[in-house]
C-alpha cells in the first residue's frame, strides 16, 4: 500500500490523507510543501517544476519503500506535482500513519529529506518583474557501484 505518484494535477490533501490510516494506527502525519512567495529575499510569483518523470516516480517509490521500512509501516503515500505552480499551491504531499507517533515523524521527515536530495526534479522560479531562473539544487548522492 506504499503509493508514490508524480502528477500534473492539483494535489488534494484530503485525498492523500485518505490513502493512509488504519485501526491499528495511533498517529497520522501529513506534510505539505507549498510554493512560497519569496526565496532568499527575492519575491516570487510562481514556479515551474520540471521532472525526469518516469525516473522520478520510480525514485519516489524507492524513497517511500525505504521510509516504510524505517518506520515499520506500509501506510505511506507520497505525491509530487510538476508543471506550473502558483503561490500557495502544494508541490508535494506526504502522508504516513503508524501505531506510535515517533515513527510517523521519522518516516515523514525521511521522505521529504530524501526528495530534496535525490528526486530528479528541477525548479524554475519566476520572479516578480518577469525574470526567471533555475533554483540551485543539491548534488544527488551517486552509488559507488551500479545498482546500489
Amino acid at each position, binding site marked *: 500500500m506504499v503509493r508514490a505518484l508524480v502528477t500534473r494535477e492539483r494535489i488534494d490533501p484530503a485525498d492523500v490523507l485518505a490513502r493512509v490510516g488504519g485501526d491499528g494506527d495511533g498517529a497520522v502525519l501529513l506534510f505539505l510543501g507549498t510554493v512560497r512567495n519569496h526565496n532568499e529575499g527575492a519575491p516570487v510569483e510562481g514556479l515551474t517544476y520540471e521532472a525526469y518523470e518516469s525516473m522520478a516516480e*520510480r525514485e519516489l517509490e524507492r524513497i517511500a519503500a525505504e521510509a516504510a521500512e524505517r518506520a515499520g509501516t506500509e501506510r505511506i503515500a507520497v505525491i509530487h506535482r510538476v508543471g506550473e505552480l502558483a503561490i500557495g499551491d502544494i508541490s508535494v504531499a506526504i502522508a504516513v500513519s503508524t501505531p506510535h507517533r515517533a515513527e510517523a515523524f521519522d518516516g515523514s521527515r525521511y521522505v521529504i529529506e530524501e526528495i530534496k536530495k535525490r528526486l530528479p526534479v528541477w525548479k524554475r522560479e519566476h520572479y516578480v518583474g518577469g525574470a526567471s531562473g533555475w533554483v540551485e539544487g543539491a*548534488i544527488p548522492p551517486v552509488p559507488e557501484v551500479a545498482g546500489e
Partner: protein
Amino acid sequence: MNGRVPGGYVEHMRIRTLFFATYRDLAGAEALDIDLPTGATAGDLVARLRQRGRLAALPSEPALAVNEEYAPLSTGLSDGDEVALLPPVAGG
C-alpha cells in the same frame, strides 16, 4: 574485445541521452542519440558529450542515471540504454 570485432570494424551501440534543466540549456536539446563503441561506460559518454560545443561546460563527473536509476560513471553501457544527465536536484 572492447568494440573491435574480428573484421577490424568497431562495433557501436546507440545511447539515448537525456538532458534536464540547466544541462538541457547547454545541450540545446532534451535528448540526443550518441553512438559509442561497445564496452563504453557512462564516463566515456560524458567525456564524449563534453567535446560538443556548450556541453564542454558539463561537470566532468555529473550525476547521472542509467535506465532510470542513479549509476556511477564506471557503469558499462549497452545498446539502447537510456542515460540521463542530472543537474543538482531541487524537488520538494
